[in-house]
């Protein structure tokens, strides 16, 4: 009989809903067959922050939300043979595994067997100089800054290797998001490195799952034009994968949201560049011959995923300190509000010059198309002179006090600005810039290991 593999996704970013996986686990209780629950919680920036936690305390550095995601479902997953796959390890996958064992102890359940993938942290085996001299793919020049994190994107094979050791959970650090689904598929179907079409199909499946509810009707609703039922209770995705590489995208019963060809197509192209060449460490996935068919209510059947040879080199993300950003806002409303808001923006720009703060300052007017135009650009929206406008200024400076000076200038508009400004708020935040480099597999592979706890 044909073997189906079930994969649910309980989180699509660090900070996603903590209770989203519960309906998936409930649904999985009634399903026989291999079942996996993935949590994708590690964005580019999240890792640099995690590295800072690890430097302060060598036992930390895993996702600060680990307890929130794992505690509610750990015992149900272990009882129902649902394996958890997650990059919740962030900068310290071993520390994350130890924390999960502590949670199990606290909940009085038999300690699970955990596979931990290590080897993504380039700082452990490359010098700063070697990293800085690697070819840059994208991002800013970072040669003058202090490197805070450097992690290579691992593929799905180490996850499959961990699963072959009969573990209950696999915890990784920096790993390409879609591999959280591809790893289980490689393990279950025993795919080989040259099963390129299947590896491509599995990668496309992982890509559709990795942002959680973005494939099941979230981030989609446009009332009156694209309606989504019961968005507040949107169900997170479940894939039913078939041996031939085709699969169904669906969601748990009695949840809100929508799975349609339109929701699946939007997510398919999300953060995709060339759909024929979607690069991950295991394969170059090809979406160009993909077809989608309705397969009943909230079910879309996906087939035609293909694959080509994997890229020669691996991508790594480098994070560096990058000064401090000041952001501040103040509102103007009522008669002639637009003119008063513009005057406030002009006063700030002039004051920054008087204070001798170097660098670009951006002024936006919220209510006037702020996310698409700066104050100096002509908005394509018709803007009433009377209304409700909020001036926002932002700038990045090398020193924290400089960013604070800019924020203070906006606050000074309370007494020194145009008439009737109110609701001033300001923030200074440390900045971390990123760049992507390419690394030889020969440097990385010997350092990638699976540890069993």
């Amino acid at each position, binding site marked *: 009989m044909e073997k189906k593999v079930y994969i649910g996704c309980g989180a699509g970013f660090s900070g996603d809903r903590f209770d989203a996986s519960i309906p998936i686990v409930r649904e999985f209780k009634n399903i026989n067959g291999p079942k996996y629950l993935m949590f994708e919680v590690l964005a*580019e*920036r999240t890792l640099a922050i995690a590295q800072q936690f690890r430097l302060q305390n060598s036992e930390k550095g895993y996702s600060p939300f680990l307890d929130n995601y794992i505690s509610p479902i750990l015992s149900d997953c272990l009882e129902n043979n649902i394996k958890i796959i997650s990059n919740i390890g962030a900068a310290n996958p071993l520390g994350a595994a130890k924390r999960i064992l502590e949670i199990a102890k606290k909940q009085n359940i038999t300690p699970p067997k955990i596979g931990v993938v290590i080897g993504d942290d380039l700082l452990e085996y490359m010098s700063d100089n070697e990293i800085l001299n690697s070819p840059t793919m*994208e*991002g*800013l020049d970072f040669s003058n800054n202090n490197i805070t994190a450097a992690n290579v994107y691992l593929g799905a094979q180490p996850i499959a290797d961990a699963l072959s050791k009969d573990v209950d959970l696999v915890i990784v650090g920096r790993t390409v998001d879609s591999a959280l689904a591809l790893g289980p598929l490689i393990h279950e179907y025993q795919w080989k490195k040259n099963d390129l079409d299947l590896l491509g199909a599995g990668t496309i499946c992982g890509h559709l799952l990795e942002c959680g509810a973005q494939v099941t009707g979230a*981030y*989609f609703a*446009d009332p*009156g*034009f*694209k309606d989504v039922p019961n968005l507040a209770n949107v169900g997170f995705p479940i894939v039913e994968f078939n041996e031939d590489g085709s699969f169904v995208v669906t969601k748990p019963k009695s949840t809100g949201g929508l799975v349609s*060809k*339109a929701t699946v*197509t*939007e*997510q*398919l*192209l*999300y*953060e*995709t*560049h*060339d*759909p*024929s060449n979607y690069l991950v460490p295991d394969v170059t996935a090809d*979406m*160009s*011959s*993909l*077809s*989608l068919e309705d397969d009943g209510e909230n079910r879309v059947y996906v087939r035609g995923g293909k694959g080509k040879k994997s890229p020669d080199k691996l991508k790594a993300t480098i994070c560096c300190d*990058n000064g401090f*950003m000041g952001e501040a806002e103040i509102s103007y409303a009522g008669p002639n509000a637009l003119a008063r808001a513009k005057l406030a923006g002009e006063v700030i720009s002039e004051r920054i010059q008087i204070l001798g703060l170097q660098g*670009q*300052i*951006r002024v*936006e007017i*919220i209510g006037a198309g*702020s*996310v*698409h*135009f700066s104050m100096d*650009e002509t908005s*394509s929206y018709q803007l009433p002179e009377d209304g409700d406008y909020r001036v*926002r200024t*932002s*700038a*990045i400076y090398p020193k924290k006090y400089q960013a604070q000076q800019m924020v203070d200038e906006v606050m000074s508009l309370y007494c020194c600005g145009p008439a009737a400004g109110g609701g001033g708020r300001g923030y200074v935040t440390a*900045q*971390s*810039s*990123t760049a*992507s480099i390419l690394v030889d597999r020969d440097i990385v592979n010997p350092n990638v290991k699976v540890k069993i706890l």
Partner: protein
Amino acid sequence: MHKINLPVHAIAHARAGDKGDVSNISLIAYLDNGWDTIYKLATKDKVFDIFKHMGASKVERYELPSLKALNFVIQNALGGGVNSSLRLDRHGKTLSSHLLHELVLPISKDMIPSNSPYHLKFKD
């Protein structure tokens, strides 16, 4: 069939994603004849003009006819990207709405989904 100029929002939907300083925006037609229109008229030159003021330096267009979808990859449109940008929307998540609003095309009633409020724009 009678055509009037409307935002492409009448016949297509979109989602924006970011990688570094590169924004990608999908444009997906609801209906087959809407696809014919965006395939012919949603050119990369028009998209470049829409994002030029944000610093766009180059636009690539990819086509997925079986999904009625185009994918625009726009270089340098994100003010440096999520970690460097001074913009309120550092990811450029809202740029999909900008494309749907700014790209205006000649549209007939039969390209628009039956329940769409855009039908009210036609007088007959």
